[in-house]
């Protein structure tokens, strides 16, 4: 493993010298083997999405005989994508935004040890990782707050994710304290300091947490069934039910719907991946 890092360095400093880098060749080979294990199941899904239902049941693993786009058309229409997509986008963006901002404000004082009880708050979040899902009490809570079958009530369910808290606390610990001092000396207010200085520095962590959290909301299947009963409020996943029967499911249409469903999250990941991978801002680590 370490030789790879080493070769990485070697390579960056030997630009322009043409020679076979065996470590690199090996890396590619290994990556291709891994890729096969990932492309395989994905290919089965895509292949299924292009099949007709009888074709699928006759030979589920055989290659689709043609590019049958009808499933995508059916999926778009039957699962009511145009209506539900708007709701999904609202729930995902609003909840993720509120979640990330509130989390950073909880995480920073904890990571810096401003308050003695910070340790215990963090402990509570760690414990929350282990807590059982509390479906029934949580339902009673939302119901009694009068937020059952409302957008706000539904969003409320997605404002907590202890994993994200722990990731962000861990990352803030890698941001040097000297920054706080210089900011405080410059007379920067705490609020502005967090939003304009800390947030950009912990972009990798925020990007990771944003992606994970947004995916969770976007793919949620159970909660919309329980908390939303008004057709106008349903997210996209609620529409997938159309393809699942008790005595048989329309797998090809479901596969097509799922492919449509995963595109926005894939784009979000590809977009944020640049930030995740961009690394911490130069000054923060090296300065």
């Amino acid at each position: 493993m370490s030789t790879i890092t080493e070769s990485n360095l070697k390579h960056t400093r030997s630009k322009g010298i043409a020679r076979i880098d065996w470590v690199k060749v090996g890396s590619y080979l290994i990556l291709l083997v891994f890729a096969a294990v990932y492309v395989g199941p994905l290919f089965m899904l895509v292949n299924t999405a292009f099949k007709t239902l009888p074709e699928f049941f006759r030979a589920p693993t055989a290659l689709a005989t043609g590019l049958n786009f009808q499933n995508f058309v059916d999926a778009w229409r039957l699962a009511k994508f145009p209506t539900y997509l708007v709701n999904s986008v609202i729930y995902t963006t609003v909840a993720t935004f509120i979640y990330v901002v509130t989390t950073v404000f909880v995480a920073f004082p904890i990571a810096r040890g401003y308050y003695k009880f910070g340790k215990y708050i963090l402990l509570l979040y760690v414990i929350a990782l282990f807590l059982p899902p509390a479906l029934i009490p949580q339902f009673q809570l939302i119901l009694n707050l009068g937020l059952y079958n409302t957008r706000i009530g539904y969003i409320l369910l997605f404002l907590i994710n202890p994993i994200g808290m722990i990731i962000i606390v861990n990352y803030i610990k890698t941001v040097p304290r000297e920054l706080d001092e210089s900011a405080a000396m410059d007379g920067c207010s705490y609020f502005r300091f967090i939003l304009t200085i800390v947030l950009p520095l912990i972009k990798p962590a925020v990007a990771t947490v944003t992606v994970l959290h947004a995916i969770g909301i976007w793919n949620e299947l159970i909660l919309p069934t329980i908390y939303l009963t008004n057709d106008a409020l349903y997210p996209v996943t609620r529409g997938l039910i159309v393809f699942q029967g008790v005595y048989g499911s329309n797998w090809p249409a479901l596969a097509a719907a799922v492919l449509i469903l995963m595109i926005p999250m894939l784009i979000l990941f590809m977009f944020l991946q640049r930030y995740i991978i961009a690394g911490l801002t130069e000054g923060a680590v090296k300065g």
Partner: protein
Amino acid sequence: MNHNLFGRGFSKYTPLLLLLPGFLLYVIIALGPSLATGVYSFTNATGIRGAPVEWVGFDNYREFLFQGAVSRDNIAATIRTLRFSFIVTTVQFVLGLFMAMLLNQKLRGKTLFRTLFFMPVILGVAIQGLMWQLFLLPRGGPVAQTLSWFGMRSEFLGGQPNEAFAWVIVVQIWANVGITMVIFLAGLQTIPDELYEAARIDGASGWGLFRNITWPLLTPSVNTNFLLNIIGSLQAWQLFLVLTGYKNGTQVLGYLVFAQGFGQTSGSVSSAFRQGFAAAASIVLFFLVLIIGMTAQYIVNRREKRIMG
């Protein structure tokens, strides 16, 4: 000791004030209901409005842990959960680090690989299950085909418990190693090249570079991944639901809680809603995860103190 550098007087409390909204949300939405689950576990609650709820003391716990032959099955499921968690955590951790280091090189197409390895995370459990059921079809499926080239054969998910269990482990790792990899990648990016260069000038190479620079400086990622993997694998059960169903000899604790609480042990039968019992079972699971997770956290913290000073 107060490290807060911002302001004096009132504004000294600004961080506290801004911390409160997030923390209160957490207490009300997550912590409170979860604690209520603890209260539920001492009742025969069904969750149905108007149905009488009685205190039953430790009856639910007694039933889960000590009554008849079911305790034998529950304990077996507990041991199976631990085995599942151990294998998944270890393999996912090592594999995730390995993949991250591969992709931390200057390689053409690494964005594509990264996206590909992360893709299952985007899909969610139901779709992961669908994909793998197709991928693992015993008759003519791609994996069955590949195995047959080596003269091997498997009944895959519909077969004997041990075999089915092993395949679920494979899918679980496949589905989640992407997160582990991304977190490691983010960590690797925080290590400045200058450190490696300096170490190389000092004559370090290969394993030495990894042991003395990469590994210690990766500590935050290591800690995060270690905890995430342990907890995630201890609580994972939906893949079992999707891939094997409620099959004797493959159940893990989380699935047991769900199936017994919501009466979904065998499809069509309309059984009782045993929220109280399910709550007790999930509290048992909670303590198991808590003990293991806290031990892990303790080890991680000690390591962090040692390394980061």
